[in-house]
């Protein structure tokens, strides 16, 4: 019997246990955050409506135009909040009495809040929706993809396959690696100076936002693409070279197809990061309140995370559930992007 053997096994068991404990902690925190967001956010997908023939105009939102033929109309945020959670807010006892009366007569109800998905931002929580943010995010991400994907992959291809190995390229490589770790707000500053002040592009537009996020994604795409390219087996390249393929043919027939899952995963994950990015967009003025969805890349635009940021700062209590609801939608979008990345990796990996 080796004397230290028992101790060595014991150490291994403890190491495993420590890992398990940290995993449990991570899951616990994740669970708490998700539970909190879902608990706070799911009421945002429902809204309180009052039968229009009741005529308690004080409960109706004064800014919305109501048609009398509509049987149900949207209740104001205070009523909505009280009806959902019992929070009294600014309601007087008499008003609360009225709501209870309505409830008894089935003149007040909760229904699915289509408005939350189809409307754009508003000063009124019960009328605000995320459609503008979603369209803005989509356009911005599209610009990011169009700029960062070809530039990033092209840069990585050149650096990995064609660039001479000298001091200059080493210096460039080191800086790209550093840029991938630079705080995103600095890219916002760069976007502000270059795209807005220097190039004079319109301020809170999807074009400027997308270009700025493209700048931010570029180093990450370069780094992940290079890793994917360099992990392609040398023997595969040699096989093609040995048959008399040119360097370009080796690249396009063998190296890029083999590296594609890795490249696409990197690109999609950096797009997912860009989708959730807020700070650089605040820097370039996308923080403005925009109540209509953009119809082009030059229109004033807001994106989902910025909208969430704006709502979270809003003093009105009704925006609390809207904030969490929008976060839920953003999380679902991010999860979808990640699922696409996983799918692509599994699909192309043979």
């Amino acid at each position, binding site marked *: 019997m080796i004397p230290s053997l028992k101790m060595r096994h014991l150490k291994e068991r403890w190491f495993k246990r420590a890992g398990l404990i940290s995993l449990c902690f991570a899951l616990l925190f994740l669970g708490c955050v998700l539970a909190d967001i879902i608990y706070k956010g799911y009421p945002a997908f429902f809204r309180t409506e009052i039968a229009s023939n009741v005529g308690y105009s004080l409960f109706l939102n004064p800014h919305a135009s109501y048609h009398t033929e509509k049987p149900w109309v949207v209740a104001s945020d205070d009523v909505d909040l009280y009806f959902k959670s019992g929070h009294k807010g600014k309601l007087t006892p008499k008003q609360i009495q009225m709501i209870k009366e309505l409830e008894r007569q089935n003149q007040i109800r909760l229904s699915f809040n289509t408005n939350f998905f189809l409307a754009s931002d508003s000063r009124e929580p019960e009328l605000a929706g995320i459609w503008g943010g979603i369209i803005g995010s989509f356009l911005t991400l599209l610009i990011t993809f169009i700029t960062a994907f070809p530039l990033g992959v092209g840069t990585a291809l050149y650096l990995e396959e064609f660039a001479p190995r000298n001091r200059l390229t080493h210096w460039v490589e080191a800086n790209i690696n550093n840029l991938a770790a630079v705080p995103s707000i600095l890219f916002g500053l760069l976007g502000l100076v270059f795209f807005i002040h220097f190039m004079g592009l319109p301020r809170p537009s999807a074009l400027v936002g997308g270009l700025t996020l493209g700048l931010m994604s570029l180093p990450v795409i370069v780094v992940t693409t290079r890793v994917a390219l360099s992990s392609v087996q040398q023997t595969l390249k*040699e*096989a093609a070279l*040995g048959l008399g393929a040119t360097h370009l043919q080796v690249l396009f027939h063998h190296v890029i197809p083999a590296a594609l899952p890795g490249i696409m995963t990197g690109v999609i994950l950096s797009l997912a990061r860009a989708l959730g990015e807020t700070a650089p967009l605040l820097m370039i003025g996308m923080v403005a309140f925009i109540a209509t969805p953009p119809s082009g890349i030059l229109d004033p635009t807001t994106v989902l995370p910025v909208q969430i940021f704006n709502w979270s700062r809003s003093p009105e209590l009704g925006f609390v559930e809207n904030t969490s609801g929008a976060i839920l939608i953003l999380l679902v979008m991010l999860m979808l992007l990640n699922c696409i990345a996983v799918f692509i990796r599994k699909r192309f990996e043979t």
Partner: protein
Amino acid sequence: MAPKINIKQLNLFYGDKQALFNVSLTLPAFQTTALIGPSGCGKSSFLRCLNRMNDIIPNIHLEGQVLLEGQDIYAPSVDVVALRTRVGMVFQKPNPFPRSIYENVAYGPRIHSLFKTKAQLDNIVENSLIRAGLWGEVKDRLSQPATRLSGGQQQRLCIARAIAVNPEVILMDEPCSALDPIATAKVEELIDELREKFTIVIVTHNLQQAARVSQQTAFFHSGYLVEAGETGALFTMPEDERTQGYITGRYG
């Protein structure tokens, strides 16, 4: 036999480190030349000089001449792509492309446009697989991924892929080192058959293999070509005592 490749005073440097010293060797046409020697002796480096596979390594520097039918393959006028269609290569580890069996063999003819019709390409693929002794085993599953074949089959597929572009010389870098004895025997048999049409150069660590498949053997040691000659003579009556030591197993 007429010389196919003539190597004159070849010196090879990786950066400052010299890997080959004044190597001169003649490779006769339609014969198999075996390159033997201990690991790191430069035999693989030498092999890779013959189709300029070393070109892809940075900081490499080469002096001397490699004459393929009298023409220096390192002359500026030589196109390395054209050279590699004349001097094919089979590697140590079977390295089929992650494509179908058919596409593996068809790849070379495709990139060099060696056919006009699909029927011609089918013909090239079939003939190459027949010559590589693989046709019978794969003819019913040409569209299957090549990576599903066994190691020995993959290596014969790589040989079929190399001969599909109809080279004059085939370089083999330890082609059997990753194969089991049965697959090795098949590849060795194949090498013997291929000698009718091609000039073959094979690097091997297996001395019996060198004795079995080659007509000429060259012994490398520390970057020097110590001795080269007719295989039977070299194995029975080596002139140099280093050769003697290596083939009798005293070091290696």
